[in-house]
């Protein structure tokens, strides 16, 4: 079964045959750059007011600075595994198919957001902001990865 016209890895590919590590690295860096900058713009700037409605749920400015490395680490791991997922799942690359994969990955995240809403006293404004934010974030990150990886080795299918 292929949903949304995505062609996945139906067989076990040999990594050496399909991976262009240079393009992989560039795609990973591009994905990290986008995820981090968009996250800052969306969650820290645009949603700042919404987050301030429930300050008890968030760290203070100084505490946040102390934990900033966790934020960077989280984005690095996120970008790396999203790139890996795109490369394995859509070995031929391409912005469209990878954007669709990004959409599916975003949908995986929406479930936990709804669960968070049920167990933590976040507002519906925050919930909606997180849902829309992660949809944009993963669709565009997927498209970025696909666009960069598309021009990879000719061995890719």
């Amino acid at each position, binding site marked *: 079964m292929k949903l949304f016209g995505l062609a996945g890895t139906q067989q076990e590919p040999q990594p050496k045959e399909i991976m262009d590590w240079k393009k992989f690295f560039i795609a990973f860096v591009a994905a990290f750059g986008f995820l981090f900058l968009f996250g800052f713009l969306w969650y820290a700037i645009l949603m700042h007011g919404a987050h301030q409605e429930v300050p008890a749920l*968030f760290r203070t400015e100084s505490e946040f600075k102390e934990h900033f*490395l*966790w934020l960077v*680490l989280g984005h690095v791991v996120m970008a790396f595994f999203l790139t890996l*997922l795109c490369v394995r799942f859509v070995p031929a690359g391409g912005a469209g198919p990878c954007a669709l994969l990004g959409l599916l990955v975003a949908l995986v995240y929406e479930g936990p957001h709804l669960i968070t809403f049920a167990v933590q006293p976040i507002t519906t404004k925050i919930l909606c902001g997180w849902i829309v934010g992660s949809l944009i974030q993963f669709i565009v990150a997927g498209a970025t990865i696909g666009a960069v990886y598309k021009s990879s080795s000719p061995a890719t299918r």
Partner: protein
Amino acid sequence: MKRFIIAFIAAFIFIFLWGWFYNGVLLKDVFAEAQSLFRPREEMMSLFHWIIIGQAGLALSFVMIYASGFAGGGIASGVRLGIMLEILAVSARCAFYATQPFPAKLLCS
């Protein structure tokens, strides 16, 4: 489509039961340490349908990704996909840990 629906139901039941057992039973004391970050029990129960919808959405999107690209690899492919998606989820938890005052024990759990 029949297998897709069966896989979705199986995934949903597992996620629901495991979520209840792991978060509701095994990690109960750890969550209690950060009580102030969570809704009171009665309020949580009144929003319980969001947990069901969230877990159903999670199961559905997982099965959609598996069915559209990993199905040929059988159980091993499913496990690999599960590991990759879980690592993505862990990375999101690291970001949440940076912004929300959860105890480190909760992040590790």
